[in-house]
């Protein structure tokens, strides 16, 4: 039996999902907007979705996670965030010689929060550093998406050892939880300045994760 969930993503869900690492981070100051959007999703019965629909959903998922709004910070073990997207031409490492270090928050040299403030007001000036309701940081190195193929990303998202222990339902919940904090996921579709947002919508992305998961997490060959 499927479960229908409709809620305003926020601290109520945070309490339920306290095992997720980002929840330990402090909330930002009161901004113009301090809560996330309405996110609804229905958890389908595993196996209730044909693999072909799951594969189509993953194609959209990959379009999202490989987009510069997501992939620029989902970088590998060199710990260097990237600048890429329509305004950059060829991808290049973040300017100012930035490295986030093994801490992935820049603690070894220059904290990300020196410029990227913890503030849920996404409306920045063009070319100003983006900010979010969670402390700015790189995700764990095993979550690398930059310069990764669809098959590689699919294998990573299918492996709880490389998703912080999350299965597909928990991945979808993670997205709504982040949105409740006005975090990085929600920012990807509301990036401020003149940045191109991630494709589709957060609502569609959540639904695609659930469709892909219920279809048995089919992965492309390349």
């Amino acid at each position: 039996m499927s479960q229908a969930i409709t809620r305003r993503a926020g601290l109520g869900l945070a309490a339920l999902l306290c095992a997720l690492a980002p929840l330990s981070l402090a909330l930002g100051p009161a901004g113009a907007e301090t809560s996330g959007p309405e996110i609804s999703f229905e958890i389908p019965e595993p196996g209730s979705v044909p693999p072909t629909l799951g594969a189509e959903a993953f194609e959209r998922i990959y379009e999202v996670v490989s987009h510069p709004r997501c992939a620029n910070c989902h970088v590998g073990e060199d710990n260097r965030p990237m600048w890429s997207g329509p305004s950059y031409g060829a991808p290049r490492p973040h300017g100012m010689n930035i490295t986030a270090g093994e801490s992935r928050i820049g603690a070894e040299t220059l904290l990300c929060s020196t410029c990227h403030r913890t503030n849920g007001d996404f409306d920045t000036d063009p070319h100003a550093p983006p900010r979010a309701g969670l402390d700015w940081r790189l995700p764990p190195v095993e979550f690398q998406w930059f310069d990764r193929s669809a098959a590689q990303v699919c294998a990573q998202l299918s492996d709880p050892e490389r998703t912080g222990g999350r299965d597909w339902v928990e991945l979808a919940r993670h997205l709504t939880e982040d949105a409740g904090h006005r975090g990085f996921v929600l920012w990807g579709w509301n990036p401020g300045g003149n940045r191109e947002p991630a494709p589709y919508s957060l609502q569609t992305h959540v639904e695609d994760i659930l469709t892909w998961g219920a279809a048995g997490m089919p992965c492309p060959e390349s």
Partner: protein
Amino acid sequence: MKVSFKVNGAAQSVDVAAEMPLLWVLRDHLGLTGTKYGCGIAQCGACTVHLDGQAVRACQVQAQELEGAEVLTIEGLGRPEALHAVQDAWVEHQVAQCGYCQSGQIMQAAALLDLNPAPSDDEIDAAMSGNLCRCGTYPRIRAAIHAAAQKLEG
């Protein structure tokens, strides 16, 4: 909105727009003009101050983030009769040329030494590359940071 915080140890309270950058709170409302405006988009580092002990770009910190915070600016880092070790080293090495970026450079360098008392050249470069100097005083900045580290070591 009204916001109360400390600047250089003194309690301050201002009534400003929630989105006003700390830079303008300091310069226009509190008269502390040692913190400089360079670009307004965190590309140059000229407005660097310390917020609760951490270097930040004052142009990116909104007033609504300041309630209860402690801000340290170049005016409060040292006193003329008792310079901070970084300021002392800056004088010794005659770092400044035009000087416009130097308050930001000094505040960033002081924050670096708080976190890393003996930084290597590479660590200095990594921490200081977000602070631009159009006069190109970078070699003197690096030398002065090494000297300040030795002064602080004692």
